[in-house]
Structures are given as C-alpha cells and as structure tokens.
C-alpha cells in the first residue's frame, strides 16, 4: 500500500510552483525591509539583522518596515485566498472577496467611527463588526427559504453591497472636510493603518490549515452542487464553511489594510490561468502570491514618490491589470 502511495501524481506537481512562489514572497519581503525613504546599505542592514546597527536603522527595520511588510503579506494573502474561495462558492471566476458586500459593511463601520472621532483601534473594531454584520445579513437573506443557489447568493450580496455603497456616499457627503482625506484613503486601502501583522497572519495560517483537507471537496464542488452531492460531498456544510471562512478572511484583511482592490480578484484568477484549477494548489499558492503582490505593491506605494505616499490599491491595480490581461491573452 505504502509503495503504491509513493508514486503519487499530485505532490511533485505542487512542489515547483509553491517553491517558486515562496521564493518570490521572500524576495518581496526582503525588498520591503531594504527600501524606504531612508537608505540603508546592505552592510548596515546586516548589522541590524544580526542584532547591532544604528538605533535609527533598528527602529526603521523592526518597527516600521518589517511589521508593515508582514501586514501587507498577511492582508494580500487573506484577500487572495478569500477570492479563490468565493470563486468556487459562486462557481464564478469573476467573483472577488468584496462581491457579497463585506467591504461595504466594513467601510460603513470604519467611516462611522471616524465620523465619531474614535481611536484607530475602534475604527478597526467597527470595520470588523461591519463586515460581519454584512456577512450575516447576506447569509440570512440568501438562505432564507432553505435553497441556496450561487445565483441567489450573488444577487443578495450584490444588492446588499450597493446598499452599503449608498451609505458610504451618504457618509462622505455629510462629513466635515478635514475628515475626508482619512476616509478616502481608508476606502482606497492603505497599509499605513496596519497596527499589528499578527491577527492577519494567524487567521491566514489557521484558515489555510482548515481548508487544506477540504481542497479536493472544493474541486468537486466547483463542478456544481448536484454533482458534488452525488460524489459524496455534504454540499451545504461545505458551502457554509467556505462562506464563513471567506468572510473571516476578508474581514481581517479589510481591518488590516482597508479595502484594497484587485488582489482578491486577480491573484486567484491569474493562478488558475497558469496552474490550473486544483484548489489544493490554488489556495496555498494564492496565500503566497497575494501576499507577495501586496507586499511589493505597498513597497512601491511608499517609495515611488517618497516621502509622499500612494495608496497601495493603486499599485496593485497597476501591476495586476496588465499582467492579468497578458495572461488572459496568452491563454487563447
């Protein structure tokens, strides 16, 4: 039995792309801690990393760049995995983590607390609450009569999302002018808000581990609810798990970095074009690639026109859109 199992088809097929992505992740993290408004030479960086170096450099590397890079990695990974899950759940390769209104709910939560002049921690907290309220509302409404088709879920989500959109516009319209930049930057998504990278990284790790054994069931679910049920998948339980997981992932991402666009849509989609549709490969690959993309985007956002800053969401779009179009074009 063991002899047979050693000649598995799938594993070697996973190792190469995941190693490449891991290297890429490492490279972007390295770039993120070596670049910034202050230039630190390699020798100085080495001193810092080996426990010495100038105090300013230590502060820059350990208190600013590293936590921010890890937050970017965490948020990017969360969004990409959430996007990959949403796409399977809705059987729609164009779904993104925000399609069901989560980011809208989070934004309304965050903007409300900004309007009330609450602290940054309270802004994060209310963003999380907003996202969860949105997720539960969509879940309850779509699920109402018992049948839960992707179309029904999608429609409910899209309507709720546009409701949040109106609420956001309203809040922007009535806010005092000095509050507006903060609100707009939050809506564009920005790593400057990241407080600690750990919640994002821990949630990313936990949910990835939970999703690992479900990977093959996801592949089956991707063929349709009926087919999946006929192949022994408890469809409803699996769909709820995916929905809850994707909601939590998105909520933590939004709390970490505001609503950053494109990562959740483009990363899983790009990976599918290159690596195929095996979710067991796509999910860990999305965690790495999404994390790497956002880390790179954030590094560029804070260095391109330093000391002035760009919103990271702009850079993810600038990197993501052409790459995506190229891949789409190449794949016939």
């Amino acid at each position, binding site marked *: 039995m063991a002899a047979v199992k050693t000649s598995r088809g799938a594993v070697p097929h996973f190792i190469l792309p995941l190693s490449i992505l891991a290297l890429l992740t490492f490279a972007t993290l390295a770039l993120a801690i070596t670049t910034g408004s202050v230039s630190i030479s390699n020798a100085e960086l080495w001193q810092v990393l080996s426990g010495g170096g100038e105090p300013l450099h230590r502060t820059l590397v350990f208190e600013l760049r590293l936590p921010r890079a890890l937050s970017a990695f965490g948020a990017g990974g969360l969004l990409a995995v959430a996007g990959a899950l949403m796409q399977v759940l809705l059987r729609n390769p164009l779904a993104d983590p925000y399609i069901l209104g989560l980011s809208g709910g989070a934004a309304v939560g965050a903007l409300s607390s900004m309007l009330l002049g609450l602290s940054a921690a309270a802004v994060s907290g209310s963003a999380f609450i907003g996202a969860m309220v949105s997720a539960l509302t969509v879940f309850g409404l779509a699920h109402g009569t018992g049948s839960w088709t992707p179309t029904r879920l999608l429609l409910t989500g899209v309507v709720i999302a546009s409701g949040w959109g109106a609420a956001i516009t309203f809040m922007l319209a009535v806010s005092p*002018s000095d509050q507006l930049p903060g609100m707009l930057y939050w809506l564009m998504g920005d790593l400057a808000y990241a407080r600690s990278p750990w919640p994002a990284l821990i949630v990313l790790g936990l949910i990835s581990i939970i999703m690992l054994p479900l990977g093959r069931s996801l592949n089956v679910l991707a063929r349709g609810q009926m087919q999946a049920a006929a192949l022994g998948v408890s469809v409803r339980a699996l769909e709820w798990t995916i929905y809850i997981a994707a909601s939590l992932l998105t909520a933590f991402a939004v709390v970490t970095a505001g609503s950053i666009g494109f990562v959740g849509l483009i990363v899983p989609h790009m990976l599918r074009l290159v690596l195929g549709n095996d979710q067991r490969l796509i999910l860990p690959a999305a965690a790495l690639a999404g994390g790497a993309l956002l880390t790179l985007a954030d590094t560029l956002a804070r260095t391109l026109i330093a000391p002035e800053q760009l919103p990271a969401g702009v850079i993810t779009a600038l990197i993501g859109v052409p790459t995506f179009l190229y891949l789409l074009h190449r794949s016939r």
Partner: protein
Amino acid sequence: MLKPIFALALIAIFSVGSAVADICVRDDSGAEVCLSKPAQRIIALSPGATELIYAAGGGDQVIAAVSYCDYPEAAKSLPRVGSYNRFDQEAILAQNPDLLIAWIEGNPAEQLAKLKSLGLTIYYTQLNDFDDVSTSLERLGKLAGSETHAKLAAEKFRAGIADLENRYSHSAPVTVFQQIWSNPLMTVNNEHIISEATRICGGVNVFGGLPNLSARIDNEAVLAADPEAIIAGGMGEENRDWLDEWLRFSGLTAVRRNNLFFIPPSTIQRPTPRLLEGTILLCQHLETARGRR
C-alpha cells in the same frame, strides 16, 4: 470710557456718508463687489468666512451659515443652508440675502455661478497668507458697514504678528514636522499658512519643499528628517492621541526632548484672526524647544 462713544460717533458719520455712494471692494477673485448700502442680510458659506465676518464686526447682520460653522459661539445658533461643499440654493434664496461670502477653493463653483446669475451679490474669499487675513477683515468690514471695528481687528492682528516676527523670526531655527492628520499621516509644504506661522516663530518646516500643498507621507520619512519638534492638531480640539503615537520612536530628537506639541487645529489651520492665538502658542512651543537643547 470715551473711546466707545467716539467710535460710535465715527460709525454714524461713515453710515451717513455711505448712504449716498456705492460701497465697493475688490474680492479675492479680483472682481469688484459693490453694494448700495451696507449689507444687512449676510450668508457665510464656509466656517472660515463665518469667522471672518464676525471678526470684522458684521456678526449681527449674518442671517445664515453652513454646517460646521462653530466659531464664534453666536454662529452656532445660525440657521443652516447646507454644507460648504453642497448648499441648498432654495434655502439661500428664501433668506433673501444681500451678500454671500463664498470660498473659492471649497464651494462648488457651479452653484455659486447659478446664485450669481439670479442676481445675488457674492464676495469670494481665498486666504493664502497672514496678510490676507487683515485685508479681508477690512474689506468685509467695509461691506458690512463695520469698518472701524474691522480696522481695529485688522490692526490688532497685524501688530500681534509683527511683534511675534520681531521677537522670534531671527531666533535659532528649530526644525519642525507639522502634522495635520494621522491615518494617513499628512503634512503641508511651505505654501501653507501653517508654514508661515512656523517661519514667523523661527521654525523650519522639514517637508517645506514638497510639491503639493498637503501631502501624505510615511513614518519613515519623519524618522529620516528627524525634526526637533512635532506640532500636531488632532481630531477635535483637545485630543492629543496623535502625539502619543510618536512615543514609540524613542530615537526621534523630538521624542527624546519631549518636544511634542499640540495646537488646537482651528487656531492654526483656518486662515482667520484666531491664527494669532495659534501662532502665539506655536512660538511659545518652539521657544520651549530651544530651551531644551
């Protein structure tokens, strides 16, 4: 004791004079604004405009304002005609005003153009430096028929600033980071009125050379610039949270020397006579910073 009576007499004389001739001033758009008699029904279309007209002595004639016009106290109870960036034209017309005080940069130009085409008189404000504050007071005072009061206010402002300038502008320079927002971290360049205050107090804005009036920067840039003092406003007039966030960077000179200063944002960010208060505070803070060398 005699002074007020004298002033009243002066006002009386001026009023008689202006009843015959048109009152004309040039506004900040460069246009001539003329009234046949001092404005009786004034609507101020921005918080800054509201402060200016009150300071110019025309407060009694102000009949309405927009949201967030919170200074002086009397302005809080004025009827509102919308917000500065989107006002209710019907409400404005219904008030039958004889003068609107608009804000070029903040008010929607199309709405103002519409009101102008309906025959309303509009005075456009755009204050870019300290000098604009005193001249605006004088011009608005003239329109409101409170010229004497306005002249006194303008003189007081000019003298106060000149005094600060004499005392501090040649003192040893203090490098300053002027934080106007946190999350995202924002500062201003030398074109901004806050930087003028800093200059008067003998400070140097470390981000003065940035191309845009206000700019979003990152913590790292502040660490790199290592200013001697950090001057911040806050969300609300009393909130020092923004300054506390710097405490974790013990390597910063400003943190080491405890030069983290709070200035109520409305006294330093709005181009109004209250700038004097804010600037006095700023000069005191920078002097404190010099003492901590």
